[in-house]
């Protein structure tokens, strides 16, 4: 649920007491019309708070925690699980890790291989990060619990996952239902970065390195299969589109 405008004004006053709205918008890159509209409606988007926080050097997660519904975010004692960390590594990076491990014996620069892998990891929010994150923390009943707790229909929840989207409050509800740290979903949706969420730098790489070969191969295989399905669907849609345009355009 977006943040109430009144609380937002109070928070903004605290973080940028003597700055005009115009300057806030200029510094944070939030469009003036967007902010004005959100204030008029009385609902300010979480992304607005994040952008303004970054512009004024505040931690976005702590800023969100200022608001009542996100109070829980202040407590960052629960660290992300290894599965969560690995879920935020893109499919291509996982496949690269599989190849790097299989090639360690023959590669001429063995000592440099892990170093190269470390540098190569893409950003945490990747093309399928939201679904992968939920898969990583799902005990089999998670989706039902979330849809009951957040009042969201199961098929809508699935559609969000497939579209690699999730509203921040649903992400928090998902974390709560799974009993993991509350920032995981915010990182997976790309609302905040892993550093802002308090994840150790290199934590994802460390979790990946800890993963046994077999587990990594299975996970990479699952991801590759899902990727293949998505690509095939896109290709089919493209084919169908071409045919419609060909015949009726």
């Amino acid at each position: 649920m977006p943040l109430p405008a009144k609380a937002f004004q109070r928070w903004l006053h605290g973080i940028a007491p003597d700055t005009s709205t115009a300057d806030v918008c200029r510094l944070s890159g939030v469009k003036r019309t967007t902010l004005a509209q959100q204030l008029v409606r009385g609902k300010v988007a979480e992304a607005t708070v994040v952008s303004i926080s970054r512009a004024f050097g505040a931690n976005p997660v702590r800023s969100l925690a200022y608001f009542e519904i996100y109070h829980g975010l202040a407590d960052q004692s629960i660290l992300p699980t290894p599965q969560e960390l690995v879920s935020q590594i893109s499919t291509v990076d996982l496949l690269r890790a599989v190849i790097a491990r299989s090639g360690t014996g023959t590669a001429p620069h063995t000592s440099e291989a892990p170093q190269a892998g470390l540098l190569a990891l893409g950003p945490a929010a990747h093309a399928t990060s939201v679904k992968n994150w939920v898969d990583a923390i799902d005990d089999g009943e998670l989706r039902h619990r979330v849809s009951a707790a957040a009042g969201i229909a199961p098929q809508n929840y699935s559609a969000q996952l497939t579209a690699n989207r999730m509203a921040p409050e649903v992400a928090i509800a998902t974390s709560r239902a799974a009993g993991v740290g509350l920032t995981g979903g915010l990182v997976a949706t790309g609302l905040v970065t892993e550093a802002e969420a308090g994840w150790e730098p290199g934590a994802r790489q460390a979790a990946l390195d800890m993963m046994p070969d077999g587990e990594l191969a299975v996970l990479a295989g699952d991801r590759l299969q899902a990727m293949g399905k998505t690509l095939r669907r896109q290709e089919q849609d493209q084919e169908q589109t071409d045919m419609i345009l060909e015949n009726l355009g």
Partner: protein
Amino acid sequence: MIEILQWTTLIACGAAALSRIPNLVRKKNRSLFYVLALMTLAILLSIQGPYLVIDGLLGSTNLANLLLRFIIFGAIYFLGIRIANGFGDERGLRLIQGHAGLAILAVISVALLVLFAFMDTEGSSAGMMAVYARDERNKVLTEYYGAAGRAYPAYVCLALLPAMLRAVRSTLPAPLRISALLLAIGGIAVILSLYFQAIPPALGYLTYVINYTAILCFVFGLALIWLAKVRAGRNTMDRTGRSAARS
């Protein structure tokens, strides 16, 4: 009101036909131009003024109305085949182009001709209103004649409807899903026209609304696809232009 609806539809359909002329010259999808041109002609024949002029030229025996029915049949037949091909609807294509579809077209056409022959069709009047009002026998014949004329378009639309609804729910690009929705609404309107006899005379304007809604939906649905094609064509041109510039 009805007049405004009729002329708007005529203009929209005529504009859609004109927009296909470049394709006609390039010999691409020519049947779509003919379909839209036939639909424009059909609308023209359904409006009182033009109808009286054209029927006058044909001898004032409402031959223009018979012509109108067959123009609609032709337009819907070719349009149906195009749509079924485009949306990859093999079942629909078989239902329209296969033996069953052609047999239905033949039976309905013969029925139309026979009913027309048995009617006393002297005196031009759009929609054969004057013939309908002449006497009991002509009234019954006109009703069957009208029903036969609506039956074939309804059959084609019914054949295509499942594929349209599937396309609406698919993961295709939004413009194509919207045009599938428009085609589906048009199809449903055409199918509803089968029940025109059940509409009380006081609500007679409904028949016009349903008919022209159907045509407008088809025209706008096709126009959306045409726009998507124009845009796609421009993109590929950009791309080839860019790669040519690079090399």
